């Protein structure tokens, strides 16, 4: 069983963290992964930086630009992750835009992911249909779970379709926004979270976008299986570096 599926079976709210590989320094990747696992994070999303990350807000975009300037590339990332499974056992997901993956070669990329022990992929600009028609087989062959996003605007029909072709969790975007643009959830979000919960999907949902502290984490996970923190974490490491990750985790979970 894929580590993601296994993790989702655990009877707890899951904390997932996104970070940009190669940021703040090129070779922080492994220590961030190890540090976050040690501090109780459940799932990691390793951001493969892209020059034009159009679903992301300024914080993640700036970290991506910096990472690229630091020399991060797809190859470098795979080299850094070569031995990651010797020390880390939580699910690892690569989150990246489609173009760098396409240039690497989708099959080669999936193969490499499997080799280093990646469990799943989030590719925001790979549409569900294209995935389904062209890449699903390859992903499955390499035991990669592809994670799809839904938003408050996604129709029920489409949600059910996405649910039907998903086999891990659904990435539930908290609101209509790019990353990092929310502060706190209001009534609209709660309604949305409830509405999705009531759909009784086969895949659990993990909420992303706008989670930055205990309050938002708890709000998000009241109805969902877990929550993903991105921008808030990037901001933290920008300021405090990668050595005391515990302090950050303490701001989210007791």
């Amino acid at each position, binding site marked *: 069983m894929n580590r993601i599926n296994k993790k989702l079976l655990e009877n707890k709210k899951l904390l997932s963290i996104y970070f940009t590989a190669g940021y703040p320094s090129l070779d922080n990747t492994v220590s961030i992964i190890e540090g976050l696992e040690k501090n109780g994070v459940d799932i990691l999303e390793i951001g493969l930086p892209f*020059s034009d990350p159009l*679903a992301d807000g300024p914080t993640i975009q700036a970290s991506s*630009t910096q990472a*690229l300037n630091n020399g991060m*590339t797809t*190859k470098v990332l795979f080299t850094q992750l070569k031995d990651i499974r010797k020390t880390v056992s939580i699910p690892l997901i690569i989150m990246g835009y489609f173009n760098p993956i396409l240039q690497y070669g989708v099959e080669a990329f999936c193969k490499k992911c499997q080799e280093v022990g990646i469990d799943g992929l989030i590719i925001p600009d790979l549409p569900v249909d294209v995935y389904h028609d062209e890449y699903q087989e390859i992903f499955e062959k390499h035991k990669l779970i592809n994670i799809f996003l839904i*938003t408050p605007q996604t129709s029920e029909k*489409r949600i059910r379709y996405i649910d039907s072709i998903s086999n891990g969790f659904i990435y539930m975007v908290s609101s209509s*926004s790019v990353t990092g643009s929310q502060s706190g959830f209001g009534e609209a979000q709660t309604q949305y979270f409830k509405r999705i919960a009531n759909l009784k999907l086969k895949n659990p949902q993990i909420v992303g976008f706008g989670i930055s502290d205990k309050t938002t984490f708890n709000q998000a996970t009241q109805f969902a299986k877990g929550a993903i923190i991105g921008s808030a974490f990037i901001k933290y490491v920008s300021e405090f570096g990668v050595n005391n990750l515990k302090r950050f985790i303490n701001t989210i979970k007791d």
Partner: protein
Amino acid sequence: MSYNINTKGYYGDFGGAYIPEMLYPNVEELRQNYLKIMSDSEFQKEFHQLLKDYVGRPSPLYFAKRLSEKYETNIYLKREDLNHTGAHKINNTIGQILMAKRLGKHRIIAETGAGQHGVATATVCALMGLECIIYMGEIDIARQAPNVARMKMLGATVIPAKSGSKTLKDATNEAIRDWINNPINTHYIIGSVVGPHPYPDMVARFQAIVSEEIQWQLKEQTGKTKPDYIIACVGGGSNAAGAYYHFLDNTDVKLIAVEAAGKGIHSGESAATSVLGKEGIIHGSKTLLMQTTDGQITEPYSISAGLDYPGVGPMHAHLYKSGRAEFLSITDNEAMNAGLELCQLEGIIPAIESSHALATFKKKQFKPNNVVVLSLSGRGDKDLETYINHFKL
């Protein structure tokens, strides 16, 4: 073989809608409605009325006598420079603003590089009384001050894109982000035949008025139903798409697409996507784009802000790959000289984008009996400072 779009939103291998889910409802709403709306006779009536009374269409098809004499062929200039706001861009913004109104949107966003599309968008928003937000790279804002002023005069809000290279590509990213953040009330007016399906097709259809007019104007003036060649510059590709449209599947008509070679194709400062680009995804579309081996989008360069884009629309990627169109690359210098030549032979100051197309005549010999139509996509007023500095006038 058809060179037009297929039902799945692709031109051959290119096109599609590679968009984050957050954009899906917006793009899907458009995709489901655009053809229906565009084929509505009320829509067509309003569109054509505005093109006529407001934009000033038909734009002339002008037989350039002295230019033709010099290059020993028959050159007809399609005068998009005479349109309201000074370029072909307005054909598309008029169409999209009517589309937006029918979709019930009351907030308009757009990206702009040189500012031509921004001005065209601000213009139609003023015309319709809709809120208008224009994203423009911080660097472009500084170097295109007159167009920024025009947008402000027209009541638009100009927001600097401060990310990435702070130019057109980043302004596009910012506009997309805005759309993600405002999915219900906002329509995003893309300025060229780029972006996710159905944008390339929708923009091409709005620009197709250009080749529609070429057809009957050429008939009226020469008795011929089609030219031998159509030449157009390609930034994203909308003026070329418009000029080619009705001739796409008529292979008697040879298509020439002119890209900006900047300081030289291999100088590292260029925007010649067909030569330097590879297949990939940019701004939601699978097409040719300039990128690192790693798939990072690289910064293009051209003296002409409107050609300074690292991709081409999927139609053009297909025209290139299939060999349907011949692609030429023209350097800054070649373009500037061709622009000056048009000034002095025909009394027309062309946009530097269009000057790239004009430089074709120095690269390629046409026959004395050939009929060559060139898309004069815009006027050069916006480029005066660049011309002045270049020629030290």
